[in-house]
């Protein structure tokens, strides 16, 4: 529902996730992560109540687009398909895609080295839909994309990478940093495999005022320096060069990401 209705009823319902570190995850039974901290900031900022619901990713965007929730306070990557239904607040993190390899695997250092190797990626994700970019990169150098294995979620893909079924896994910048930081002796960050990508909060297209309100909230965090603090805390970097405006159309996204054919 749009802002007016939210203010009238006195609360906003946001959907968050439970297994996408470092954006949202559960530790010791409590919600943690970047968006969990942001949620606290939002509670201070808003003059209405914020109610949080935790859902698995599979049904989450569908539930938001069905009006079950007002918006998704998650680490959602921007994609063409999603822009059909959602607008995005200005990005708060990069979602450029990187390869992850085994720490002891010396055969991968450059994009070319990925040619013909087995790759794991999450089913139905933006990462999967942007694989053609990597394919083009490889083909430009006379290589080719190897076998693609789709996973329901990343922990299994990482398990298969560790046990050797996969040669590399593609994930976006932030979770890659987190993974490599937590298991430096098992995993290492490989080359980037896509152009720019963005992470931000999806707001249904029929709630333009809510989009504006959340954009204002993000501005507020930028101004008081909390955003940079939280980005450093959770992502390890603050992504200074992100776009400043909400993302509302495919064209706009493609121009920013340098995706135009």
């Amino acid at each position: 529902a749009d802002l007016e209705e939210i203010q009238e009823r006195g609360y906003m319902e946001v959907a968050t996730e439970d297994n996408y570190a470092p954006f949202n995850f559960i530790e010791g039974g409590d919600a943690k992560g970047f968006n969990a901290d942001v949620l606290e900031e939002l509670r201070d900022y808003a003059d209405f109540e914020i109610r949080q619901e935790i859902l698995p990713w599979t049904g989450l965007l569908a539930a938001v687009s069905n009006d079950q929730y007002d918006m998704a306070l998650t680490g959602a990557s921007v994609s063409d398909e999603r822009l059909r239904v959602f607008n995005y607040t200005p990005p708060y993190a990069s979602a450029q895609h990187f390869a992850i390899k085994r720490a002891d695997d010396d055969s991968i250092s450059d994009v070319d080295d990925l040619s013909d190797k087995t790759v794991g990626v999450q089913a139905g994700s933006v990462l999967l839909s942007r694989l053609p970019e990597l394919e083009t990169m490889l083909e430009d150098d006379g290589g080719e994309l190897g076998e693609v294995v789709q996973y329901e979620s990343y922990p299994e893909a990482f398990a298969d990478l560790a046990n050797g079924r996969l040669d590399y896994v593609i994930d976006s910048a932030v979770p890659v940093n987190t993974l490599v930081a937590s298991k430096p002796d098992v995993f290492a960050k490989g080359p980037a495999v896509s152009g720019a990508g963005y992470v931000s909060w999806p707001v249904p297209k029929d709630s333009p005022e809510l989009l504006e309100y959340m954009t204002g909230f993000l501005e507020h965090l930028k101004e008081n320096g909390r955003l940079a603090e939280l980005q450093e805390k959770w992502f390890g970097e603050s992504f200074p060069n992100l776009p400043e405006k909400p993302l509302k159309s495919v064209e706009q996204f493609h121009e920013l990401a340098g995706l135009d054919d």
Partner: protein
Amino acid sequence: MNASAWHMLLEGAWTTLWISAVSIAIGVMAGLVIALIRLARIPIVDQLLVLYISVARATPLVTLALFIFLSAPDLGLDLNRSVAGILALSLNTTAFNAEIWRSAFRNFSREQSEAAMATGMTPWITFRRIMLPQMVITSLPGLVNEMSFLIKGSPAIAVIGIVDLTRVTNRISAVTYEPLPPILVAGALYMAIIGCLVWLQRLAERRANRLAT
């Protein structure tokens, strides 16, 4: 895995347990009611029930759970997620149970119910005092089997945000990046829960010997 992971697993097991228990109770009752209605062979109602049973048996639970959760608001229903989950599980298990009860009805000895009627019992008393107690014993293996399938299938309702045992393992491995240990523990917990049911079934089997005249 640390102490809090164990705590989460046990909590997940509890959720699995109570949601399954409620759905089993509803499913067993509703299955019996449907079997009774089908005995009456009311023209259109009967075909509708057959259709329901056929579709509900074939529909994967994940699908059903999401479907109910997402389409409830369109129907003007405000469903709590636990309610939606229980509804999905019950709709599914009821279809199977209805068939189990129905075959118990069909196999019930006509002579015995005639003997009951001959002593002046009304059909209702005959059903309650003579048929039901025996049908419970003869159907229990089938019912227990179905209960165990319900428990095993219950991870599907995690899709609408219910934190059951399997979902907890996902949450733990999302942080530790090691999916195997929590899965092993979850497996053991599932086996413990279903083991109790199998034991119940063994008890009933012993009783059933008495009915085999």
